[in-house]
Structures are given as structure tokens and as C-alpha cells.
């Protein structure tokens, strides 16, 4: 016969185990929807993702490519390849041509439909992923 204390401890471990299993299962399930890959324009051109995959596109907003409207159009570039992006909504205040941008959305028929444009609170900030993409392309020059 186990002592009451031991019994409690075993029950506790079983409950904890059950919770952890549920949590792991939920995490695994949720990751399918929640994980968004980060892709640069060159990666998309090289290996286009399927049209129902939600992912993040990062790069620079190409100069003179922004067409305003209730549906915005602009090009996102990594100075090697460009991707045309459309976005219906109000762009963040720090959205500017020549600046870094991260857009979340779907790639359909050669067009990236953004559902969210990531803004930063800081005008000097370049998203880490964008910076690395630009470094990969050899165009990033750290400013003083």
C-alpha cells in the first residue's frame, strides 16, 4: 500500500503528464497554422510557394513603384528580384519607398496578396530578416 503522500505525488505527475501531452499536441497542431515562413523575393521566384500557404515576404519597397488607392500596389525587392504586392487597407505610417517592409499574405498567380503589412515604431529599424536577406544579396551596407 502506497502512502497517501506518494499517491498524491503520482496523481500529480499523471495530471501534469496529461496536460503536457495535450499541450504538445495542441502546439503541434497550432504550429501548422501559426508558423509563417519568411521568404525573400529571390526565394519566391526560385521556388514559388503554393497559393494557400500564408507566409511573410520581406525586402525593400522599390522606389517609384507605389501606386496608391484603396488597393495599394507596390514592388518588394531584394535588389535582385521584384515581387508585386497588393494590399487593401491603410498602410502603416512608416511605410515608405526605399524602406524595409514585411508583408504577410499569399502568393497567387505571380502576385502577392498581403493581408498585413508590418510596421515598426522606429524609423531607423530594418527588420532582422530583411537585413539578412539584403546581406545575402550583398547589397546591405550598414549605416553609421
Amino acid at each position, binding site marked *: 500500500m502506497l502512502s497517501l503522500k506518494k499517491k498524491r505525488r503520482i496523481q500529480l505527475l499523471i*495530471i501534469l503528464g496529461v*496536460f503536457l501531452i*495535450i499541450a504538445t499536441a495542441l502546439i503541434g497542431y*497550432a*504550429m501548422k*497554422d501559426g*508558423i509563417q515562413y519568411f521568404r525573400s523575393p529571390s526565394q519566391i521566384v526560385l521556388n514559388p510557394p503554393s497559393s494557400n500557404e500564408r507566409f511573410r515576404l520581406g525586402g525593400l519597397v522599390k522606389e517609384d513603384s507605389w501606386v496608391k488607392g484603396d488597393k495599394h500596389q507596390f514592388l518588394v525587392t531584394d535588389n535582385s528580384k521584384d515581387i508585386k504586392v497588393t494590399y487593401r487597407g491603410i498602410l502603416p505610417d512608416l511605410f515608405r519607398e526605399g524602406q524595409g517592409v514585411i508583408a504577410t499574405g499569399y502568393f497567387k498567380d505571380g502576385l502577392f496578396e498581403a493581408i498585413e503589412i*508590418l510596421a515598426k515604431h522606429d*524609423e531607423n*529599424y530594418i527588420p532582422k530578416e530583411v537585413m539578412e536577406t539584403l546581406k545575402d544579396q550583398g547589397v546591405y551596407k550598414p549605416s553609421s
Partner: protein
Amino acid sequence: MIVEFGHLALIIAFCASVFLIVVPTIGLRYRWINFTNLASPLTISQFLFTLISFLILMSAFVRSDFSVKLVAKNSHTLKPLLYKISGTWGNHEGSMLLWVLILTFFGFLVACFGQSLRHDFKVKVLIIQSTIAAFFYAFILFTSNPFERYSIPPFNGLGLNPLLQDPGLAFHPPFLYLGYVGLSMSFSFAIAALIEGKVDSVWARWVRPWTLIAWIFLTIGIALGSWWAYYELGWGGWWFWDPVENASFMPWLISAALVHSAIVLEKREILKSWTVLLAILAFSFSLLGTFIVRSGIITSVHAFASDPTRGIFILLILVVATGGGLMLFAIRSRDLSSRQSFSVVSRESALIVNNLLLVVSAFVVLIGTLWPLFSDLVFEKRVSVGAPYFNIAFTPFFVAISMVLPVGAMLAWKRAKLNQTVFSLWPALILGVALGAIVWGFQTGGRILGPVGVSLATWLICGALTDIWVRARGNTVTKRISRLIRGHRSDFGKCVAHCGLGIIIFGISAITAWETEDIRIVSPGEKYSMGQYELQFLGVRQYQNQNFMTTQGEFRVDKDGEFFGSLLPEKRFYPVAGIWTTEAAIDQSLLRDLYIVLGEAQDDGKWTVRTYVKPFAIWIWLGALCMALGGILSISDRRFRFSAGSKKVL
């Protein structure tokens, strides 16, 4: 000259902290009372010198002394006074100084008001607190000195990021830091208890209010941040599951668990090692939060240009504190055994389930937050984890917590009768299900989230009220009410805090399920309708303010054919920083928020406009306020005054 005194004061405080680590430790080892007696005065002087240093930095901001690099980079003569002051902590260096100021302030409180603590124990707590402080002093002095000077001061400063020029955000960092750093107290107490190998109800009686204070500040701090994001960013969102937000949410979850497990320890002298472990974890999560925010290692919406090399130093502190704490725990926790037992159906079990759910949900958030880092390092794939992950993986645990909470909160200690508790909760359950069903019937085809939220919220709130009603035993209604009024404040606190959770759950599910949104391009004079409201865009006008220029749109709102009000969303331009910001116009009421954002100007005088109707939005923050209020009521209970009933036994 005075700025150099600030620097000097900081160096003195650093020396005091090192001195405090060395001397009383030797005193403890050889039982030299003269040495251990130094702990309190050293802690107090540490606090005073840090305070002097902080005030000098603040005065540099107020005086706009641009020979100080930090002031020149973050302030401007044209800025309103409030934001000159809040500019002190609106940057990396200043915020770290604020952090260490609060850290020493908590040490100061123990030194001054800890007479009821046993001398040796108090000294140990102060030594540990001072060790943490020493690391942060070194961090500030060697990597982020706020008092650095320019040899040639610039004519004017660069100004504070305009988005931060907001009353909500001016006080957001101090509150959050009071929460983060408040958990250092529980940590120091836990480590000291592990060193002594002894934890008892008196220990819990000390740890609980500290944790509760930290938790209250965290609650308010998080609510302020979310409130700011809601009306200042102009995206209409209030929580983005962003790494920086999660960084404050994880310590909140763990400290909520700690507050509850400390109750069990205090009342029943069980869960000793678990409570100590939670105390270590809670502060570790605070440090992890500081690390995530300050290093900018994970891409975040809220990331400010940050410096990864500084992150390494905080990471070092995190590893030392967590690693050291957990190692000590592994070695010593075996001494913390308890003799009490309890039945499966009892308050103890209920609180254990609460704790496990809170900790596991924090774990889920942790995985989601750190996954991008992990994926980058291990798989070399750049990913981000978005809101869908958290909605799916986190929500079930909070639904589970809400379902068991009212029952668990009413179970008796030791051995409870389940059917007795369930019997008194029948009305709450029936009301909850009925309201949910009615809402479901009315909304035809909407998301199931709304009715579920209504049910859970009703269940929680009525459950909390039932609890306090049953507690005030009495035959007649008047007798019960008079007992209720004279009842313990902590019982009220529990009721209010749990109601707050219900209110938040209702607000969140209502806004998520029933929000409506409209985006269009309007020309001046154009009308459009939004639900029961008729809106008309009258045009824009421009004017100059103290430190910004604004373009203000005017909207006339009609309801049922009658004039209802005007809404004035703005776009502001801050010339100093060269930044545009969006000021949403929000008409707020208990039932719904009408939220208008002005977008870009089109070429032909038209404007993009985004309009939302957000039902019950304000309930989210009212709920948070309720939770904090519950905590305050609880802490004001006479039974938890630091001195009350705690003999010099610790």
C-alpha cells in the same frame, strides 16, 4: 558638472552593492554580527545613490541638457514637460537605470520594514537582491552608460519617438518594471529559503504580498500597453501575440500561479518546493522578457533599434540567475518536505490544477515566442509564429481554467464535498448556459466564440458572487449583507479579481466575434453607413501644435436620423523626427466603440478611411482594472500586513 555627479552616484551604488555581497557574507560565515549589520544600511545607501543618479538624469532631460548624448538623442526643447520626464525611461540606457532603481527600492523596503524577519534570513535576502543589482549596475556602467557626454553639444535634440509621446505609454514602462522587478523579491526570498533549507507559512506570508504587488503592477502595465496599442497604433488591434507582448505576459501567468500556490503554502504548509520553484521561474521569465525586449533578437512589431551585443550581457544575467537558482533548487529542494495530506476533492487539488494549467499555458506561449529563434539556429529557416498559433494552442487552457475556477474556488480545504459545492453553483451554471444559448440564438450564423465567451463570463462572475454570498453565512438577507460588509477584504479581492477575469473573457470574445470593419475611399461630403450609424466625411483641416502639425478629418455621425456626434481622426507630422503618426478617433461607450482611422490622402482630395464598430471593447481593460483592484483589495487585508502574526521564526 552635475551630470558627472549622477555618474559618480551610480558608481558608488555599484561599489555599495559589491561591498554588500562580500562583507555580510563573511559576517554570516564567521557569525560576526558587526559585518552582517551592515547589510541594511548598505542597501539603503544603494537605493539613495541610485535615486540621486536617476533624478540627475531626469533633471538633464527636463533642462534639455544636450551635452548629454542620451538627452540629445531622445529629447527636444519643444517637447511637452511630461514627455521630457518620460523620455528619461523611453530609451535603453534610462530604462535600465529605472530597472535597477526599482530593484534597489524593493531591497530598501525590506531593509526598512523587515523587522519581523529573522536577522540572518533578512541579510541573506539583501545579499541576493544586491547580487542581482550588482550585475545590472555593471551592465549599465560598462555597456550602456546614460551619462555619456558630447564634447561639442548639439544645438537641439533629436526628439522622442512620437509614438511614445502619449500619456498611456509614458507610464507603461514604470508599471511593467515595477512588476518585473517586484518578482526579484520573491526570487531572493526563494533562494534565501533554499540556502537555509526551510520554508514555512511565515515565508509564504512574506512572499505572497510581494508577488501580489508585482502581479498587480504587471496587470496594469500590460493593460496600459495594450490600451496604447489599441488607440495609438491605429490598427484597431489590442493584442498581437508579439514577442515583446508575450515577454510581459509569461511572467504574468507564472506570477498568477505563484500568488495561488503561496496561498496553499501559507494555509496548509504544503507545495513548498513547488512554490519555491515558481518563485525562481517567475523572475527568470522577467529576465527573459528583459532579454527579448532589450536584445531585439526576435523580430517584433515593437522592436526599437536595439543592440544585440547588449543582449548577451542580459543573457548572461539570465543564465546565472536561472541556472544558479535551479541548481540550488535541485540540491536543496529535498529538504522542503511537508507532512500534511489532502483529499483529491479539496481546495488544495483545485489550486494545484490551476497552477498546472497556468504554467502549461505559459509554456505554450514560451514555445511560440522562442520558436523563431530555435528554427533559425537549428533548421536555419526564418519563420515567425503568428496569432493563429497562440489562438489555437493557448485558448483551450484558459477555457479550462475558467471552467474549473468557480468550483475550485469554493471547495473546502483538506477534504471537500463536491456535490455540496456544485449544488450552490447550479444557478450560476444554468444562467451561464442560458445566456450563451440566447446569444447564440440571436446571432444566427456568427462565430461560436461569442456565445461561449458569454457563457464562460457569466459562469465566472456569478460563480465568484455565489462564493462570497455563501461565505457570508446567515439566515436572513440583511444578516448576510451585514456580514458581507464586515467580511475579509481578501475575500472581496478574490471575488473582484475572478469577476475581472470573467469581464476580460467576455470583452475578448465579443470584440473578436462581433467586430465589423469597413474600408473605403471617401470624398468630402460623402456619406456611408456602418451598422446603425450614418457617417459623413466633412473634410480635413490643418493646424499647428506645439511640436507637431496635424491634419484633422471631421466626421459627422448620425444615429436613427439624428445627430449623434463628431469624430476627429488625425494624421500628425512631427517635423523633428520626420515621422507621421495616426491618431484614431474613438467614440467609446460600454456597449461599443466607434473607431475611425484616417488613411492616406489620394490625389483628388479623397481620403482612405477605415471604420470599425467594436462591441464591448472597453470591457477588456475594465476587466484588467478589476483584476488589479482585486489584487489591491487582497493586499489591503489586515491579515496580510507584513507584521501581522509573523513571529520572528523565519
